[in-house]
């Protein structure tokens, strides 16, 4: 690779030969991926291909053990850092299944998160900001005093993740299937939320296995993952191709057997 010869022009998430095990089972098997700040990339792939594993690993979930390769942000390896250190360096993950924390209100949760990021807003300003972002995601301000994700519907949890994205304004955001389980209106609201924060300051990796959200949020690049590796990368046209053909031809081209992969081939039909 040329990484050592070319100076890093912009900050980027650089994943190189990343191999990861969960409970002794190899899940990621040499992932290469680069997402620079200011670009929106899509990561597609059939169910079980390792997309969430990659997202969790980038943020440092303790369950995921890196056995080879590296993962850097701004040229510095993330691997020795705890999740909170990574988050404070500008990383953010919208979880596929956001966790409930009973007893911790949305306000207190976000106040603590902002404070951790060195932005201890005065109460008035904090409330104004939160109300504004909730409104943008079409959520009632009553959510402020509810416990974070506790008893939220699937769609409310996803929208709350985007509220957090908008409030925290990370340098690199990974959105893990933020689109799944949403009806058309909610999907559009979430997509608009992403478009609002999108800009030169933020790199975004949208993990999805449907093209739906990409109709609203146009990606600069598209990657396809299968069996723990990135098997294809390209422009927007890759999305259309998957839409037409499913994943089978891409898998075959990569020397993988389609039938063995759960969800393969049917991903585009939903």
């Amino acid at each position: 690779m040329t990484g050592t010869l070319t100076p890093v022009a912009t900050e980027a998430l650089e994943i190189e030969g990343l191999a990861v095990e969960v409970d002794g089972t190899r899940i990621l098997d040499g992932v290469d991926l680069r997402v620079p700040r200011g670009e929106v990339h899509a990561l597609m792939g059939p169910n079980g291909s390792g997309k969430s594993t990659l997202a969790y690993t980038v943020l440092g979930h303790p369950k995921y053990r890196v056995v080879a390769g590296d993962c850097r942000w701004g040229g510095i390896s993330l691997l020795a850092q705890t999740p909170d250190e990574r988050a404070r360096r500008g990383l953010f993950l919208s979880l596929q299944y956001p966790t409930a924390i009973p007893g911790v209100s949305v306000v207190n949760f976000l106040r603590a998160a902002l404070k951790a990021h060195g932005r201890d807003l005065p109460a008035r300003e904090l409330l104004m900001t939160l109300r504004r972002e909730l409104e943008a995601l079409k959520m009632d301000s009553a959510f402020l005093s509810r416990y974070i994700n506790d008893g939220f519907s699937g769609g409310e949890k996803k929208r709350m993740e985007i509220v957090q994205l908008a409030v925290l304004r990370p340098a690199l955001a990974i959105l893990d299937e933020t689109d799944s389980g949403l009806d058309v209106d909610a999907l559009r609201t979430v997509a608009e939320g992403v478009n609002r924060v999108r800009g030169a300051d933020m790199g975004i990796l949208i993990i999805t296995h449907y093209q739906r959200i990409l109709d609203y949020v146009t990606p600069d690049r598209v990657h396809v993952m299968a069996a723990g590796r990135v098997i294809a990368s390209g422009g927007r046209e890759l999305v259309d191709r998957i839409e037409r053909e499913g994943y089978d031809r891409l898998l075959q081209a990569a020397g993988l057997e389609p039938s063995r992969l759960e969800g393969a081939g049917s991903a585009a039909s939903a």
Partner: protein
Amino acid sequence: MAVAAKDLTKDYQFGFNDGEVYVFKAAKGLSREVVADISRRKSEPAWMLAYRLKALEHFQRRPLPTWGADLSELDFDDIYYYVRPAEEQGRTWDEVPAAIKQTFDRLGIPEAERKYLAGVSAQYESEVVYHSINKDLERQGVIFCDCDTGLREHEDIFRQYFGTVVPPNDNKFAALNSSVWSGGSFVYVPKGVRVEIPLQAYFRINSESMGQFERTLIIAEEGSFVHYVEGCTAPTYSRDSLHSAVVEIIAQPGAHVRYTTIQNWSTNVYNLVTKRAIAKAGATVQWVDGNLGSKVTAKYPSIYLMGEGAHGEILSVAFAGDGQHQDAGGKCIHVAPNTTSTIVSKSVSKGTGRTSYRGHLKVHPRAHGVRSTVRCDALLLDESARSDTYPYMDIEADDVEIGHEATVSKVGDEQLFYLGSRGISEQEATAMVVNGFIEPFTKELPMEYAVELNRLIALQMEGSVG
């Protein structure tokens, strides 16, 4: 044990020791002479001396209870049973000896008094050294003083109720308290009077091997309301101290008494307390009981629902760190029909800490239409932490509605990761999860106490993450 207790001092901010301050200190150990001397120094009527001596006999006769927390290291001969810190009780803080005032300053009591309290009592060792009450309340006939003053100046009311809720032979520690009691609070709220701002008592043990035996008696007449709050701390020593209080509450018909405790003794204190209330027809009694400190706590606040339509609530939270055992719980005894009760217990165990919930729900045969719910939730922070529940139910009536639920959970990796992914450190995240867990308790506290409790939990979390 002493070593383990000392190691904890770094986390305990109230463990400072301002040196010994006293004008009289009885010899160590317990005897008829010590009891008689306490009574003489207090110039008590003869009936009280007789009462004390009889209680002492009960205490000496009764074996140490073995059904609960381990008390085998408790040495009754290595305890000072009476230490008089000052000659006179102060009505202003300037009248309190400087060294003692300094202690309470460091604990923030005078400041809290200025900001949000209607009355304050500050006990240091065996005696209340400072006392004040809002003049308006005094004019409405509210009495708030230490129990010794209660006996001296209001003997008729005092004698009518003292020992009627917790008799001296109730249990070994009630007998001990009844024989050597000193200080505590006497509260009397006349019919229909509402004390809207909390009355607070603050208990401080200062010297090593100290025994503190305050006695509290609260009488709320018909339709009245009072909220009494108590807090307590002690310096950390390698030798154990003993705190053994008795609290009696009488809520007359339609009265409402709320009693809030934030117990934060140092981890060398045995905290063995008997708290019991009687609720007459239509009365409400609430125990809001927070246990953070002590080496061993054995405390099961109870409510006897004696009159039709009475309501009782026991809301408790226990936090046990390394080497601590919080053996807490609650008892509701439904004697009258259509009475209701709720018991909610939340416990958190960390390191080698141990919490137990011990509950008793009893419904007498004639008590029809009773409704009660019991809920205990335990949160374990470490593999070595332990939690047990001993819910005991004794239902003798037919048409009752009883709900019972118990859960044990661990602070999940997923919760810590989620908070971590938002930039929040593991230590702070753990404190947030714990504070969230006890939120149903915290939200019942006056705001100032809620903030303080959350801060104490955060302190307990410090140094807990490697």
